[in-house]
């Protein structure tokens, strides 16, 4: 029984069957990659996991509890953190403040009327945020406006924000999309480091096969809304069905 169990999930948008009958099991403390050509339903699946979409059929269980029908913030508080395709950070806030917000969320829950105490007096949260910035090699940028960071730094910040919530499952939606090679490699190293240092399960949606084969321990291939095959990276590499799905995609 994996930490995340997706059973018979289907989702239809009007006439389009975005997800057919998806079954997926992500083992605890593994790195599981979900790959597939454009339009395969990867993002739809992810959105069903985090509460942005509610599937028409099937069930999604996280650690034995259903996530369906819960709001995104509730699912997040259960221990699922999500990294977006384009980094979603608080652009108007400083880097340190960005890092403090998930620390507050971890400490105080979804809502806390903390309107009179000063932020400066929250020493535990500041210390935790500073330590995480240190881990992310961003301590020298702590007073910068988050919107003025480079793309790679925004990504690091976002991953750090997710980690400071101490999630059990980290979902990454194409974390290296639109990145230069060097930044991609940095991100791979960062994720390897995270896996090594923490008890965490990582599920990653990715287009870049270099990233997938550097990280994944298990790979699910989606095509046209249904899982084509699930196997180890070695077996996936030479799998005829996978080659067909991807070659079919490039032949068009």
């Amino acid at each position: 029984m994996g930490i995340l169990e997706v059973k018979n999930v289907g989702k239809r948008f009007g006439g389009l069957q975005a997800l057919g009958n998806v079954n997926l099991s992500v083992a605890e403390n593994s790195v599981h990659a979900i790959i597939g050509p454009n339009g395969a339903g990867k993002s739809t699946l992810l959105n069903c996991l985090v509460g942005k979409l509610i599937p028409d059929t099937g069930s999604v269980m996280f650690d034995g509890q259903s996530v369906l029908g819960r709001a995104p913030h509730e699912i997040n508080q259960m221990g699922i953190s999500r990294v977006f395709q384009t980094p979603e950070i608080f652009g108007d806030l400083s880097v340190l403040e960005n890092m403090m917000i998930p620390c507050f969320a971890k400490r105080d829950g979804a809502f806390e009327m903390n309107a009179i105490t000063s932020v400066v007096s929250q020493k535990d949260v500041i210390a935790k945020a500073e330590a995480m910035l240190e881990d992310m090699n961003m301590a020298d940028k702590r007073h910068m406006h988050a919107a003025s960071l480079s793309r790679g730094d925004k990504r690091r910040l976002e991953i750090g924000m997710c980690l400071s919530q101490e999630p059990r499952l980290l979902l990454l939606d194409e974390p290296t999309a639109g990145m230069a090679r060097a930044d991609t490699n940095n991100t791979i190293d960062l994720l390897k480091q995270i896996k090594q240092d923490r008890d965490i399960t990582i599920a990653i949606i990715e287009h870049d096969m270099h990233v997938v084969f550097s990280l994944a321990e298990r790979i699910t291939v989606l095509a046209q809304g249904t899982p084509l095959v699930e196997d180890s990276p070695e077996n996936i590499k030479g799998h005829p069905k996978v080659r067909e799905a991807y070659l079919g995609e490039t032949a068009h």
Partner: protein
Amino acid sequence: MFALDKKDARLLLMVAVLTMLAPFILNPFPAGSEMAQFNAGYPDLMQRFVIFGIFAIGFNILFGLTGYLSFGHAAFLGVGSYSAVWMFKLLSMNVLPAIALSVVVAGLFSVVIGFISLRRSGIYFSILTLAFAQMSFALAYSVLTPITGGETGLQLALDDPRILDVAASATGNIPVPGLFGLEMRASTNLELGPWVFTFNVGYYFSALIMLAAFYLAIRIFRSPFGMMLRAIKSNQQRLNYTGLNARPYTLAAFVISGMYAGLAGGLMAAMDPLAGAERMFWTASGEVVLMTILGGAGTLIGPVLGAGFIKYMENIISKINESILHQWFYWLPDGLEDFVVAMIYPFIGKGWHLTLGLLFMAVVIFLPGGLVEGGQRIGRMFGRKKSEEKDKPSGKTTPAE
């Protein structure tokens, strides 16, 4: 000082000194001189400065921090005024219970309106709040006449119960609002040579409440709660996926700003014990939006500056008339004098709205951060050391979008 950092403490102290010395600062011209009409140091106007300052400070907690643009805050102002007048009618002429009730009733009212309106964001939220405020206005004007006095407004009468107070004063008149016997309208004049300075009880009472309200706003701005509100404005999606529920945060901000508006409305009634439905009209809601943006949304001092600026324009520019213009330009040749006066005339008197509109456009286009940004630019131009401090990200100002 007061658990504030140095810069905030300095700001609070500066505002305190300015408000306490306002009767001097706003009366720079000797009484009876030609420039005396630019003096703003008379009680009525000074009271309006601080009361609308409170209104704008509260509005800024909602709009400046969360970015939710309410177009119906005048409803809370009006509700506050009605509550206070009812307290004068039923209980006593002491202003404290009246103001307390204004804040409570406006708070309850804003819980209801906020709960419904905050289900939407952006323009839909603005429209919902506008609709509620206009509905309140229309109801107060018509069907709720027994409670609101309808078209004539709610006024005190000699046969009001006033169970803890006298129905009529010793002279047979309606008693006036006061604080334990200290009448709000009482004033003392200080004559220094040709200058006359007026110290009014109501003004100082309102100014002290505004300082408390300003202090509370600083604390909210600097709190984790305030940080969450800024995060909502910056990226609500990220906030939701960080395990935080935006709804109660925005509702809390909405209710706090509604209570500020109620406080302002209660104070207005305490200065002059009558309340009319026109206080809830949509233009009154629009005015506080203008004040906040003109001064600098999201900054601490901006809304107070904006409120002062607009109230000054409304009361001073609108008083200039054609004959005053002719007095100013008498030294020009006759034809030219008429021409100059004709050119300026549309901008003064009843045309003050035109002047205000043009200034507002100029500020929004050239100073998106409002008057506060203007002040900072001037500061930087003179190369003060302070401008460097202000550039730090932890600085007090976060420019509005």
